[in-house]
C-alpha cells in the first residue's frame, strides 16, 4: 500500500445522543481510490465530513500526511485548501458558471489570468466548454452537477472526496465521472467516494470500505487488475476495442 494520506484512530462522532460513527482504525492510502459503501445512515457522509475537515469528531485522532490534526480553526482552514468535498446535492452560488468554478481559486488568491485558464480547463474536463458566462441557476440538474465537479477540480486539491456522485446520474455523466476519477488517481490524487453500489469498486479499481451503523464492517483491497471501465466510458473515450 502507498503512504497513508489519512489515518483515523479511535474516532467517534456523535449526533445528539446517537453515535453516528465509531472507527477504531482506518487508513486512506495516498494516490488511490477508496469507495465507502453502506446503506443510508451508515456514516458515510459523516466520515466524509471529517475527512474534509468540516466536522470535528468528538473523540479520536485524525492524522493527515502523518501529522495529527489539532482542529484549530487556522489549521482546519489550511487543510481545507488541500482537500475538497463534492456534496451529494451540490450548491451552486448565484452568478455565472465562471464565478462558481473560480470560487476556490479566488479564495486562494490565484492570479486572474491563471484563474481564467484553470476555469476553462476545468470546464473542458467535464464537457462544458463555453459555459463560462451562463447563469449557474439556469442550468439543468446534470449540468449543475458537472459545474460543481469542475469547481472542485479547479481547486487542484491533494484529496477529492465525492459524496454519492453516481446517484441519479445518466450513463454519460457516470462515464465522465469514471474517467475524471481515473485520471485524477493517475495524477497522484487521493479520491474517496461514497456509494450504495459496491460494484463500483471493481469498476474504479478502488479499495472498498464497508460501513454499517457507523462502524467498519469490512474492507476489500483494490483490484490488482486496476479499474474495469464501463462500456459507456470506453465508448466515450474511444477505447471500446482496447478491452476485449
Amino acid at each position: 500500500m502507498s503512504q497513508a494520506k489519512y489515518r483515523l484512530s479511535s474516532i467517534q462522532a456523535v449526533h445528539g445522543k446517537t453515535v453516528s460513527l465509531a472507527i477504531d482504525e482506518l487508513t486512506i492510502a495516498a494516490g488511490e481510490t477508496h469507495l465507502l459503501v453502506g446503506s443510508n445512515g451508515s456514516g458515510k457522509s459523516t466520515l466524509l465530513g471529517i475527512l474534509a475537515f468540516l466536522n470535528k469528531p468528538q473523540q479520536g485522532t485524525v492524522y493527515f500526511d502523518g501529522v495529527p490534526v489539532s482542529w484549530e480553526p487556522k489549521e482546519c482552514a489550511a487543510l481545507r485548501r488541500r482537500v475538497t468535498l463534492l456534496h451529494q446535492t451540490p450548491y451552486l452560488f448565484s452568478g455565472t458558471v465562471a464565478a462558481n468554478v473560480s470560487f476556490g481559486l479566488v479564495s486562494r488568491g490565484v492570479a486572474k489570468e491563471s484563474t481564467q485558464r484553470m476555469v476553462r480547463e476545468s470546464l473542458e474536463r467535464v464537457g462544458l466548454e463555453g459555459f463560462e458566462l451562463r447563469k449557474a441557476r439556469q442550468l439543468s440538474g446534470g449540468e449543475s452537477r458537472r459545474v460543481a465537479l469542475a469547481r472542485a477540480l479547479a481547486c487542484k486539491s491533494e484529496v477529492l472526496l465525492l459524496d454519492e456522485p453516481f446517484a441519479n446520474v445518466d450513463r454519460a455523466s457516470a462515464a465522465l465521472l469514471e474517467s475524471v476519477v481515473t485520471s485524477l488517481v493517475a495524477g497522484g490524487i487521493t479520491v474517496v467516494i461514497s456509494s450504495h453500489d459496491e460494484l463500483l469498486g471493481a469498476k474504479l479499481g478502488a479499495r472498498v470500505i464497508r460501513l454499517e451503523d457507523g462502524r467498519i464492517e469490512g474492507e476489500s483491497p483494490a483490484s490488482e487488475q486496476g479499474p474495469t471501465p464501463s462500456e459507456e466510458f470506453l465508448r466515450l473515450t474511444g477505447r471500446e476495442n482496447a478491452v476485449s
Partner: protein
Amino acid sequence: MGFITDSLREALALILAGDREVFSAVLTSLNVAVWSVIFASIGGVPVGIAVALGKFPMMGAIRVLLNSLMAMPTVVVGLVVYGFLSRMGPFGSLGLLFTPQAIIIGETVLAMPVVANYTLAAIQGADQRILPTALTLGASRFQSLCQLTREVRFGVVAAIIAGFGRVIAEVGVAMMLGGNIRFLTRTMTTAIALETSKGEFAFGLALGVILMSVSLAVNIFLTLAQESHSA
C-alpha cells in the same frame, strides 16, 4: 372635501415652487436617515449574522432582546440618548444635543435592531449548504461568511431598507434630539407635526406627499432589486 383638495393644490404649488423651508426639511430628513442607516447597517448586519450562526450561550435571550428593541418606542430611544447627550450626561461636553448628529445617533440606535433582525431572518432562511460549500472550496471563515451574505443579499438589502423605513418616518427621536430647529434639525416628520398644529395644513401635506414619494421610491427600488435577483 374642498379643504382637502384646496390644501393638496396648495401643497403641490409649494413643492413645484421649490419652497426653501419644505426642501430644507426634506434634505435634513434624507441626510440623517441615510447616515443613520449606514451606521446601523455597519453594526446591524454583522450582529444579525453572528446571532444567526453563533452558538454561544444565552442565544435565545439575545434574540428576544433584539425583537424587543425592534418595537422600542421612538420617544424612549430619544429619551435615553437625550440623557447621554444632555449637558449633564456623560457626552454632554461634546455639544451634540439639538444637532443633526444627535438625530443620527438616535436613529442609528433605532434602526440597528431592525437591520439586525431582518439580517438574522435572511441568514436563517439561507440554504444550509452555502457555508460548507464555501469552506470545502478553501474559503476562510470570513470569506465564507462574505459569500453567505452575498447569497442572501436581497434579504440584507431588505433589512437595510426596513431600517431606512423605520427612521425616515419617525418623529420622537428627531423631535427630542434635534429640537425641530428651522433650517438645521427640522425633518419632514417634525415639520409636519409642527405646521399642522399651527394650522398650516397645506405645508404639512406638501411634506407628507414628499415623504410618501420617498417611501414609494424605496419600495420600487426593492421590487426592482428582487426582480433582478430572481432573474
